[in-house]
């Protein structure tokens, strides 16, 4: 009870911090209604002309290439970093040098994954100019941090008994990891990497907004011109991409579980995708030839020197209020919606568990499938695309950002919560009137509390990173300031803001993990 009161208080506080009342007062019903009408009208009639389709197809191919090559590059680098960090075997290695290396690598990966790929794109843009290569590298850097840290955790968590013989062989630490811990985490590692590929596909489809190539730039432009039929075409391509990434990764995951190697198909896929990036590589070469190397070095050097003035620090910390409140509020709201929906979304399994003797209530099954499909659609559209759509109706600001995060969060959490309930294979509830809610409240939820808490906490962490991204796109807060600073070439200031985001993310990450435990 006290926990619920505390949560309610925190929600009110976060709402104050976001100044949602002002946002709601500024809400212009007529404008919103007109915009919404135009939006739905356009979305209902996508532009299916040959020219539009050809253009969309080419951009979609770029997006796939950016996501695949970026994730593969990041995954390989992340794996190497994780092996290096884990060679010290959970920081208990007798050698001080190896232990120091392990700690440094872990902190480094945490710092790298704190910044969203949008922020990395803005930084890389300064050196390589806009284009698909910038998007690819931005995704690679972010994935290296995220997967590297995830792989490190997996390697650390291998039960010591499972590697006794290999680790008692006296072989080098690297050999021990390669023969003991690494094969152990193979299936889980592939599963993480494929999940990340899905995410990269979503991010690659919008990273063009900050100059990263792919569908995003066009989407942003057409929304600006109000050409909703073109927007509809692009959105369709985007949803088709993310949904097929979802299906494709499920297929590959099954293969990985059946012990078959994924190295060859993955290499073939990445090489094929790499071909699509060749023209972009030529553009980068041209860009680099036009830029003075001294100037480029100076740019990098300036990025390395964060501005430490009190003023910048104050505005950086103040800028954290919006993303922190956004992440917190949206996670709470999305969790509540996903929890509330559980008794409907999970019906599939519960009817199956009751056995063939009980007639499966068909309407419940249909409802569950329909709701899960809605959730799939909600998470297939990237948060940034949701933001742009809501902004078209409500004007850009924190309110559309909150809604965007909620939409995506609901899509993800409905899936995770439902799967957690389904996988737990708990005894079927007693049949009888109104068993659903009572069963959930008194039987299922108390047992699943930790699992659901972990999912919500980790989702909250991801919302924080996305809230930075939404800020970069224009929703306000520190992300917005970062974008402005880069735009005005105030690189020392941008660097300081980036560091603040990293610090905030690491603090929230540690807190989320403690809460989840």
């Amino acid at each position, binding site marked *: 009870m006290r926990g619920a009161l505390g949560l309610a208080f925190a929600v009110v506080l976060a709402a104050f911090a976001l100044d949602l009342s002002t946002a709601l007062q500024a809400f212009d019903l007529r404008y919103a209604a007109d915009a919404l009408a135009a939006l739905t009208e356009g979305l209902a009639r996508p532009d299916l002309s040959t020219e539009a389709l050809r253009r969309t197809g080419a951009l979609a191919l770029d997006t796939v290439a950016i996501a695949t090559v970026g994730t593969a590059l990041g995954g390989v680098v992340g794996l190497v970093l994780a092996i290096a960090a884990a060679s010290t075997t959970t920081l208990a290695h007798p050698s001080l040098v190896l232990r120091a290396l392990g700690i440094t690598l872990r902190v480094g990966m945490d710092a790298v994954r704190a910044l969203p790929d949008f922020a990395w794109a803005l930084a890389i843009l300064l050196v390589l100019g806009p284009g698909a290569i910038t998007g690819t590298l931005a995704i690679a850097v972010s994935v290296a941090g995220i997967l590297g840290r995830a792989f490190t955790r997996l390697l650390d968590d291998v039960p010591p008994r499972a590697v006794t013989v290999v680790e008692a062989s*006296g*072989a080098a630490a690297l*050999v021990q990891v390669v*023969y003991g811990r690494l094969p152990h985490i193979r*299936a889980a590692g592939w599963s993480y990497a494929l999940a990340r590929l899905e995410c990269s596909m979503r991010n690659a489809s919008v990273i063009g907004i900050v100059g990263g190539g792919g569908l995003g730039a066009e989407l942003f432009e057409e929304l600006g011109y109000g050409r909703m039929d073109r927007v509809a075409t692009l959105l369709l391509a985007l949803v088709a991409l993310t949904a097929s990434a979802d299906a494709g990764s499920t297929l590959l995951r099954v293969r990985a579980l059946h*012990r078959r190697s994924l190295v060859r198909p993955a290499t073939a896929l990445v090489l094929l995708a790499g071909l699509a990036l060749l023209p972009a590589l030529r553009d980068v070469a041209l860009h680099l030839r036009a830029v003075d190397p001294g100037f480029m070095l100076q740019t990098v050097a300036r990025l390395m020197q964060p501005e430490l003035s009190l003023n910048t620090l104050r505005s950086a910390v103040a800028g954290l209020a919006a993303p922190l409140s956004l992440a917190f509020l949206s996670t709470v709201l999305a969790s509540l919606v996903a929890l509330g929906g559980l008794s409907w979304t999970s019906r599939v399994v519960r009817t199956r568990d009751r056995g063939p003797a009980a007639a499966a209530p068909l309407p419940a099954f249909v409802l569950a499938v329909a709701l899960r499909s809605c959730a799939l659609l909600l998470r297939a559209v990237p948060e940034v695309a949701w933001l742009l759509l809501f902004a078209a109706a409500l004007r850009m600001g924190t309110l559309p950002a909150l809604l965007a995060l909620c939409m995506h969060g609901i899509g993800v959490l409905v899936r995770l919560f439902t799967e957690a309930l389904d996988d737990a294979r708990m005894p079927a509830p007693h049949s009888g009137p109104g068993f659903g809610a009572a069963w959930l409240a008194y039987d299922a939820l108390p047992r699943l509390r930790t699992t659901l808490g972990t999912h919500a906490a980790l989702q909250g962490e991801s919302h924080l990173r996305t809230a930075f991204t939404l800020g970069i796109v224009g929703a306000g807060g520190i992300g917005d300031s970062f974008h402005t600073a880069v735009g005005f070439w105030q690189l020392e200031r941008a660097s300081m803001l980036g560091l603040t985001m990293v610090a905030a993310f690491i603090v929230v990450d540690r807190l989320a993990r403690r809460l989840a435990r």
Partner: protein
Amino acid sequence: MKEAAALQQACVAYGDGRGVAELSATVRRGTAVALIGPSGAGKSTVLDLVAGTLAPSSGTVTTLGEPVAQLRGGAYRAARARIGILPQGDSLTPGLSVLQNVLAGKLAHWSTAWALWSRIRPAAADVDAAREALEAVELADRLHAWPDELSGGERKRVALARLLLQSPALWLADEPTAGLDPRRRRASLDLLLRLARRDDATVLVALHDLELLEADFDEVWALRAGRLAWRRPPRDVDADTLAALYEAAR
């Protein structure tokens, strides 16, 4: 040197009061020793001490003439290569094929570069050696299978093949028959002892199932509460001594 392993006044204390206290005993070369005693009597601790993966808090332990736990670098690796361990439970690496699991027995003999290369493309000679080791445990046809396709007994035999490939002078097995079908236990232990004798290796086996004492052992060590209660040849062990050993623990 006649001893394969020697413990002198060896002590280890765990937080929960278990461990071993002032244990002194020697294992003669080429013999097979069974370690028995109630749960928590210190059987696994003795094996860890002899293996050199655990250092005694006081006293000394020498294995094949060396204080293994105190060695570092090349000397440590050389010593490790001569000590084979068969840990309790399933000790195969799940993501490695049977072949790679057996080849892991060579890790102590290989250089780092060769070990890494073998993970990608094992040399024909090594594959032949692995096949030979699997033949000895009658699993040559499962060379390319995966551990999760094998039965519990087959997995134990693969672990034994890994030990054969390592060909150590001292074998340390911790309850090698645990988890097996009761009818299979004796056959599995007999195979282990037979192969060890074939390779002139010394064997130290911790046992839970006392019926297995009828196997081909030279000596039985009885542990109780971290101390050596008695050691005698198997023919001098009768039901009454065993009952007394296990009764006193209750």
